[in-house]
């Protein structure tokens, strides 16, 4: 094993296929997008070089909608970290205690992650349907007719209505990560605390969660980055509508490129998303580092 590690040629050779794939599929297109974002181009005809005008337009154009979409993405990120991760943590702690049917529940909670986002979107569209959807029917049967709304079509409710299935879908994913993390904490620590008279809650607060910090860091990064990139659920449910109420950067990018033939502008949105994801990943890593030490 040591011989392989020290043999430079071997290292390079074994890493070559993966590196080639990574560079060609991820790095090169990013640079190409970066170049396209400096153009005024519709993807089909001639391109004109306009430098940073696209980026300036992103933030200053009144009808652009990018700032609003960023705001929505940040709201989603905030909700993700608080609601989604909070729920996932509670579930993981509850399940890791070692009660009956633990494996079964872990699997059940993980099922939404495995179902296609599009399928979940279609399902929730039927739940939100103003005429025969589950929510409105339930409200009507309880006599709360005035609370019924067009959940996906009303400016005020569309954003939250779109976020709920999104948050719901990935709770299981984060729960699984945390569950695995909790399981890897040596039980001797917990037993020692129990002997000293700690309650379950105190054990969770003072022992499990602090030791779970690396896993939590990973989960937070995934949650935030995933929220900035979120696309399919929103596209299926509202496509960013009505009137940009539920627009996120990725849906804005798709509508700009395919509806308005503005490939250059869309590419600049793509580069901004990449940059923001990177920025937040580094920021979160730093934030956790000071605590974990």
């Amino acid at each position, binding site marked *: 094993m040591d011989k392989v590690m020290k043999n430079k040629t071997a290292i390079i050779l074994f890493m070559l296929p993966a590196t080639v794939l990574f560079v060609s599929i991820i790095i090169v297109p990013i640079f190409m997008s970066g170049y396209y974002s400096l153009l005024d181009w*519709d*993807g*089909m*005809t001639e391109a004109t070089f306009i430098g940073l005008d696209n980026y300036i337009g992103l933030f200053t154009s009144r*009808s652009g909608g990018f700032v609003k979409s960023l705001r929505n993405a940040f709201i989603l990120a905030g909700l993700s970290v608080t609601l989604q991760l909070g729920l996932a943590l509670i579930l993981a702690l509850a399940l890791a205690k070692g009660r009956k049917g633990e494996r079964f529940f872990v699997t059940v909670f993980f099922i939404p992650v495995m179902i296609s986002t*599009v399928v979940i*979107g*279609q399902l929730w569209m039927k739940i*939100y*349907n*103003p*005429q025969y959807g589950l929510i409105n029917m339930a409200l009507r049967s309880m006599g709360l007719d005035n609370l019924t709304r*067009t*959940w*996906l*079509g*009303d*400016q005020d409710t569309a954003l939250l209505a779109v976020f709920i299935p999104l948050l719901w879908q990935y709770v299981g994913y984060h729960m699984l990560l945390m569950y695995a993390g909790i399981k890897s904490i040596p039980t001797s620590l917990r037993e020692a605390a129990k002997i000293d008279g700690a309650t379950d809650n105190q054990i969770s607060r003072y022992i499990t969660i602090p030791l779970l910090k690396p896993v939590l860091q990973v989960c937070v990064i995934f949650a935030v980055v995933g929220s900035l990139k979120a696309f*399919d659920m929103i*596209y*299926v449910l*509202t*496509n960013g*509508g*009505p*009137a*940009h109420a539920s627009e996120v950067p990725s849906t804005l990018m*798709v*509508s*700009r*490129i*395919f*509806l*308005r*033939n*503005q*490939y250059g502008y869309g590419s600049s949105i793509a580069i901004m998303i990449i940059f923001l994801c990177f920025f937040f990943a580094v920021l979160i890593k730093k934030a956790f580092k000071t605590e974990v030490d």
Partner: protein
Amino acid sequence: MKVFTKKVVGLFLVLTLIMSLTACGGNDAGSTGNSTDTDTSTDSGSTDSGSTDTDTDSGADAEDVTLTLWSIATESDAFNPAYTKAIADYEAAHPGVTIVHETFENESYKTKIKTAVAANDLPDIFFTWGGGFSQAFVESEKVMPLDDYYADFSDELNEAALGNATYNGQIYGTTYSTPVSLLFYNRKMFDERGLTAPTTFEEWKEVNQAFLDDGITPIGISVKDTWVLAMTHDALTLKSAGPEKVHNVLTKTSGSYNDPDFINASASLVELIEMGALIEGAAGLSNDEASQLFYNGTVPMYITGSWMAGSIYTDSETPEDFDLAPIPVLNDANAQITDFMGGASDTLMVAASTKYPEVAGNAAFELARSVSKYAYLDGAGVAAWNVDYDESDIKPLVQKVAQNATSATSFTLWFDTLMEAGDAGEYLALLQELYIGNLTPEEFAEAMADQLGQ
């Protein structure tokens, strides 16, 4: 025993994986989420690739040719039977040529075709919308000019019908129907209240009020599929400003959108919204869902393209209850009741990258001719090509559509395909804001004028 079961299970899983891989490998037609009907690869029953030396067409192509055709005629689309029959006819007339038909849902097709053009991934023949929508395709030189092929068919298809497929004086596509926007209404519900189809905006408001007084929301519409809202707004704008003005302003030839006639149209739409005439929840309903409310008699009116005539026969249980009328006039100084939104928008184009230009160019026209005939007989569309076949079987609603279309004094393409893509996108976005109430009609007109650079 345990090892044995493990091996069996493992083998079973591997087989499942292999089967699922091969099953998915076959049809590579993509289709995104919204549609319940995905893609259909229809190889219209032509198994005679064995017939060898038949000289098929003028191209003298003795070997087997396969052409790929993309369209939006999915199984639930009114044009699907017409396409299938057209392909069958073509393959029977041209043994040795097979047409593979791939279909996609309307909205997602707009994305698909633009990607294909940009990525040089076009099929031999593809459906698109004439006017501003395909302008970039032509400018990018990825589409083949079809003037030579049209020459063979010029006596069967009026050149005026190809107006929206002509760019820079050259014909780039062929068409098969001239749909128009119409006000479809439930005549039974009208008769029950002694109402007749409105011809002016004032009459229309009275009709709406009559239904509202009865507790019925009069007009069905979809705002989620914004093109449906656009159809109503387009029609109001046309009937307020008149065809010449609309065409000049939207193609940026002359004039400005910030004009009293345009503002009047948008204000009229807002009037309808504020009186509660449009169904609630339209912003969350797709066109299919909203149309259902019309077919089952919940709402009495729906403005959309003439293809609904065909759908009424297939999707409603009581088609004889329905009737249609031209859209009411707002300003009779500018527009007449016989000015129509619509025209030959559905276009079949041929990719410049096709391996069989001769066959494909000819096929595009022959297919269009057949689709024109069958779609008309089915009631899905008004024939753009000359009609030299028996029309007596055609259903009453469709005959009425044809009568309206032939009596038209003008056709104006729907705005979202008339304008070029950037302007069209902004138009639809602003329309949503107008509907919600974020913009007043004056602000809407200003924003549109801004976008059009006027």
